[in-house]
């Protein structure tokens, strides 16, 4: 098979070709490694998708298992034994973990080969990948625009054909939003269905790993080998049943609900147009479409920007220069750290970027004496109301559909001066995160020549239903992402 033909295959097709003997795993790995290494070598002239790429001679032994050796790009924040895992932060620069994250190990056991680690917003805090200590990632559809975030490197790499598929994490939209902005598929699973062990934590009650892939079938195949309870993650749950590869061609009788709160105000006209065209396509496939209400959804972003920073401020307390990562050795005046407290505070000053500092401060404030009930306590009650909203809507409809992001990819630097404007990117994705329910983004068209994402969400553990609906829509929408494969 020629190198070009190899790149045309989806990951699932490549795994099938390897199983059938028409493609060698080594050939596939080498083709992708060469492309990933070229992007890494290009620095700022490339897309800057990667923070590490497997070296020459690292071609893995032909792997047994359903994934057949198909190479996998993994977001920087997953611990990978002996391979730099830095969560996009200066404070973890060069950190080599002593163990591998459970979900990565599961995928390797199923035959995935580690191709590269992908660039991301620092500690997954961001919606544009402009908060990485290792530089901005560029969108392969337009290099002057952001890929979204925080899994921006994973999304751009898959869209550009620099990796067949990738792992990301989603706390408030960090898989779905970059997938939407890069014209690929991204799925955030039900909270608890994928182990968080070995993921460098941002907000533990929200963080969830998921696939970023070229198509829906690939997302199903990767997710199939990710889910399962893990004794190393106290919050993980057994997935009831198995993830199946989707086959649906029609949506007859499927009830799709469009929440008024997430499909009107604040969304770009071009995005709404593509969204409505996708709904019409759904109707043509037999779906019944109705309006639904999520009355507390307008409060989701407020609750999220209490809960996520509060949990982050606690999780990031571990970065203090003692056990791993950066230690500030001297003050700006060249003095040695005078005492322990001085060492902590200067290490954290030097190691964290501005957005991470902002969220640590916000979270520390919200958890500080006298404010806990007014902020974190209330936010967790809002969260209960949001979950109840979804439960009552899922008594009327099977799935909820919204645009994934309120705009197409925006220009680098466009929103960096205003943190609140950046946070508003997540207003369609955060409610599902707070409710812990699964949601997938698929590309549904173009606006201004840039991809638009359609989000489909369902009740906890409805991944198979989601994947089938997404698959049927994908087949009939016929979105072509080939032009982004540079």
């Amino acid at each position, binding site marked *: 098979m020629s190198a070009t033909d190899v790149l045309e295959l989806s990951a699932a097709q490549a795994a099938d070709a390897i199983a059938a003997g028409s493609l060698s795993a080594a050939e596939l790995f080498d083709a992708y490694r060469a492309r990933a290494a070229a992007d890494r070598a290009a620095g700022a002239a490339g897309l800057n998708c990667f923070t590490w790429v497997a070296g020459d001679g690292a071609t893995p032994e032909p792997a047994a298992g359903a994934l057949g050796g198909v190479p996998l790009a993994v977001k920087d924040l997953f611990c990978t034994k002996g391979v730099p895992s830095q969560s996009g932060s200066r404070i973890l620069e060069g950190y*080599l973990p*002593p*163990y591998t994250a459970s979900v990565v190990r599961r995928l390797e056991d199923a035959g995935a080969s580690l191709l590269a680690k992908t660039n991301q917003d620092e500690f997954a805090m961001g919606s544009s990948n402009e908060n990485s200590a290792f530089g901005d990632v560029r969108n392969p559809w337009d290099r002057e625009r952001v890929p979204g975030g925080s899994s921006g490197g994973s999304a751009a790499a898959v869209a550009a054909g620099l990796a067949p598929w990738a792992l990301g994490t989603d706390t408030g939209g960090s898989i779905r939003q970059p997938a939407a902005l890069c014209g690929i598929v991204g799925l955030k699973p*039900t*909270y*608890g269905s994928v182990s968080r062990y070995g993921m460098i934590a941002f907000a533990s009650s929200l963080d969830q790993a998921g696939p970023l892939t070229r198509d829906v079938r690939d997302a199903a195949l990767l997710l199939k080998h990710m889910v399962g*309870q893990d*004794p*190393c993650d*106290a*919050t*993980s*749950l*057994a997935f*009831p049943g198995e993830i199946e590869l989707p086959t649906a061609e029609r949506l007859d009788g499927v009830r799709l609900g469009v929440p008024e709160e997430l499909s009107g105000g604040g969304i770009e006209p071009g995005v709404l147009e593509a969204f409505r065209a996708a709904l019409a396509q759904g109707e043509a496939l037999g779906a019944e479409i109705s309006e639904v209400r999520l009355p507390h959804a307008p*409060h989701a*972003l*407020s*609750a999220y*920007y209490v809960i996520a920073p509060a949990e982050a401020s606690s999780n990031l307390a571990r970065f*203090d*220069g*003692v*056990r*791993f*990562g950066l*230690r500030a050795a001297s003050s700006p005046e060249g003095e040695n750290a005078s*005492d*322990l*407290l*001085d*060492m902590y505070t*200067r290490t*954290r*000053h030097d190691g*964290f970027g501005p957005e991470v*500092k*902002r969220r*640590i*401060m*916000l979270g*520390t*404030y919200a958890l*500080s004496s006298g404010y806990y009930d007014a*902020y974190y306590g*209330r936010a*967790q*009650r809002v*969260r*209960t*109301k949001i*979950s109840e909203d979804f*439960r009552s809507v899922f008594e009327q409809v099977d799935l909820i559909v919204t645009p994934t992001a309120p705009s197409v990819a925006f220009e680098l630097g466009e929103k960096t001066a205003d*943190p*609140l404007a950046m*946070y508003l990117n997540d207003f369609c994705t955060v409610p599902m995160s707070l*409710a*812990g329910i699964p949601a997938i983004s698929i590309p549904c068209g173009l606006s201004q020549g840039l991809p638009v994402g359609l989000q489909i969400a369902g009740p*906890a*553990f409805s991944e198979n239903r989601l994947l089938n609906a997404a698959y049927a829509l994908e087949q009939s929408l016929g979105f072509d992402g080939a032009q982004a494969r540079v």
Partner: protein
Amino acid sequence: MAIHRMPITVIGRDEVLHVARLARLALAEDEIEPMARELSAVLDHVARIGELDLDDVAPTSHVVADAVPTHPALRPDEPRPCLPRELALAEAPAVADDGFLVPSPQA
């Protein structure tokens, strides 16, 4: 029904420095004023949750286990072996006597 309307939040310089101390975070002089402004803007937005009546609402703990009570339980909380000492120390910035070496608390 009690409505918890939160006052407009304005975080000043002193409060920023207080929270930074709690967070073990040194801030440079030129980071303080922008931090005060940005935190105030976000907290203002966040204060909208004060408008909701939440008196009889239970806070979420595990979002899925709470919502799907019939679902198989979380794993039992049993002790498991931890990382061996030499691995735990391998990435430490400074080590002495099989432990993490740090500056004296009151040097």
